[in-house]
């Protein structure tokens, strides 16, 4: 229907050009053209309307409502009270929130520093060295990404549990007291890294597949030309492949950052944000404020901060990028 409308529109345009010398004909043609344009606009409007209504109801309205609530003292029950910026002031004064903010920044930083290079290393290895051993590895690396977070967290606890975890048992059996003595989930200095290690295993599957797809899309003659010039193996990866993955890497960095800002499931299920606030994130703090402490206003303020930070980092990470590829 849309195509037919466009075709008709083009015919009228041709009619305009052909009979442009005759004023009467030109007038009729313009009216028809205007009506067609109106119909077309109406058609487009009705096409967009359902999607717009859906977004307005389930996305824009909650965002606006979150902003409104962030200026309110609200328990979710009874009347809300306007408190201005009080929720934000109290958040920045609280240890829980400050630690949560620090942890999501650290998480984003280390994700970019560790997970992205690791993903590139694995993606390049699996595309460059294709044989019957590396083919199944693609599925294996992606498998962790497919597992639900609850299972991933359970496996993480199975590895890091302080009394009967795999690492602890290895330490005991091998007589490595230093390993057996580490409290992977209960030591404030170690817990963050234990959860991060599980996340690295679980979350690198997607970047690996994404980068592999991009590497495989690169023209074959580029590789052949590089080989003629003697650029092979990891030199090829460093000098040819990596510069061509600048934009995909930037997308992954944005995804890592936004994912870190929203982080909730894995640290919550492995440590509930503890010990103390050692693994707390903004997402966990939001949940605690809203659902456990009945502080909807403060939870909304955290939501607003996550949204604003996500926007800032997205703009920052894409700024300066002029061309794709």
């Amino acid at each position, binding site marked *: 229907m849309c195509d037919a409308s466009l075709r008709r529109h083009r015919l009228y345009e041709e009619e305009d050009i052909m009979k442009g010398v005759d004023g009467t004909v030109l007038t009729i043609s313009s009216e028809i053209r205007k009506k067609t344009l109106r119909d077309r606009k109406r058609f487009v409007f009705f096409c967009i309307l359902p999607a717009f209504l859906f977004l307005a109801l389930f996305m824009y309205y909650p965002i606006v409502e979150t902003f409104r609530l962030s200026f309110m003292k609200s328990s979710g029950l009874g009347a809300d009270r306007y408190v201005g910026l009080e929720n934000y002031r109290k958040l920045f004064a609280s240890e829980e929130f400050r630690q949560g903010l620090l942890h999501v920044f650290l998480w984003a930083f280390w994700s970019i520093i560790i997970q992205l290079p690791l993903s590139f290393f694995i993606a390049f290895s699996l595309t460059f060295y294709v044989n019957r051993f590396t083919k199944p590895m693609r599925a294996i690396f992606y498998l962790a990404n497919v597992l639900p977070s609850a299972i991933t967290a359970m496996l993480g606890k199975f590895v890091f549990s302080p009394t009967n975890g795999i690492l602890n048992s290895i330490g005991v059996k091998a007589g490595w007291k230093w390993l057996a003595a580490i409290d992977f989930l209960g030591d404030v200095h170690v817990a963050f890294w234990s959860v991060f290690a599980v996340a690295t295993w679980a979350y690198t599957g997607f970047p690996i597949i994404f980068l592999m797809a991009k590497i495989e899309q690169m023209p074959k003659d580029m590789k052949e030309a590089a080989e003629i010039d003697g650029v092979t193996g990891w030199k090829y990866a460093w000098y040819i492949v990596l510069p061509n993955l600048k934009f995909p890497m930037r997308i992954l960095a944005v995804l890592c950052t936004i994912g870190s800002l929203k982080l909730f499931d894995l640290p919550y299920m492995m440590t509930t944000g503890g*010990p103390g606030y050692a693994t707390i994130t903004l997402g966990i703090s939001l949940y605690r404020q809203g659902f456990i402490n009945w502080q909807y206003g403060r939870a909304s303020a955290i939501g607003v901060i996550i949204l604003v930070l996500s926007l800032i980092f997205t703009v920052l990470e894409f700024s300066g990028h002029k061309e794709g590829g």
Partner: protein
Amino acid sequence: MRKHALVLVLLALLPGFLFAQGTKETVAAPTGPVTLTIWGRDIPDTSSDHIYVHDLIENFQKDNPDIKLEYIALGDPGLADKTKITMATGVDQLPEIIQSWGGSVMGGYADAGRLLDLTEELSAIPGSKAAQDAMSWKGKIYGVAPFFAVAGIFLNEEIFAKYGLQPPTTVTEMEKVCDTLLAKGVQPFACGAKDKWPPLAMYMYLVNRYGGDAFGSAQARKIGFDDATFVKAAKKYQQWVSKGYFGDKPLGDAYGDAQQQMASGRAAMMVTGSWMCAQFSDPTFTDQKLGFYAFPVLDGGVGKLTDVMGQTDIGFIVTKKAEAKKDATVRFLKYAMGVNACSSDPGRICSVPGVPAKNNLTGMASKLFSQSKTVQFWWDQDLPPAVTSPLNDTIQSFFLPGSDVASALTQFEALVADEVGPVKK
């Protein structure tokens, strides 16, 4: 075009009109049994933890064919989260009955006008006063608590006998017992501090033993939560942690790990609620012989052996949604509080008179409960929700090496002052 749009709009609205008409008819002429929806925490299976709820649902419907129960198990924290969200949206989406521990959370719902006042109907049901108080708010009764839990010390009697130890009656004796156990390579206490809420049980007792009803005074804003009593109790707790009474990795163990430490005999004592009686009496869960004792008193302290900490173990509250089905709802609550229904539970302390204890541990816990002179409701069920998770955070911080407990309590008091009100001079 406009005509077409009008026809389309009318066509779209037609099913709505038809549906609305149908709903009206259903409401106007109800037939068949009354349906009561219950949101529960427990899965209604036949395990020792859940058998009471399982039998209650099954038997009530058999004995009351005119009432149909729709029981939806939501687990924990699913029940709390879903209840909170639905309470916030209004009464329409709520079930008639919700499993609840009562206390301040229930109070919040009552204040918001979401609960049905059943004082007249429920006040005459025989049961313990502590359990009834737990399901009351500002003088009105909103539900029933067929089972009530008290905190005490689960103690491995075999380990104590092996090393010639006696159950401690004073804190000094308890410290000596712990030192002996440590020397023998046995972890004195299992706790589960990773989960944040389990360490509260011991702290509540320590505060009581140092300063009596210091919590009540702090709650009434006569003293702060950073008062000397709270600080002394916290320092004692921290001292025990640093001495290794809770093991080498106390913050790595969750509540489930602590249960396993007791079940396997790796730890000798655990301060927790009597809800564990059934499991600790179950030979398929543990081969250890455990006992249940009062928390010791402190030499020169204020608190007594008869000051007990407790909370609802299983309870039900009724929402405003049940207003039209009040009779059926009250029948269910009375049935839940009946001797027959309560007798199916293998290990909880029943708040209904005439239900015998099913095992030695429950008998010991019931004795402690019946001999108690004062029952302090579990702090995190008694304080407003805004400060309960920070309370548990604060107590968990006593387990962090080198933490400044006085400063942590001062921060907590500042929060309480902000949310509840400052200390009245």
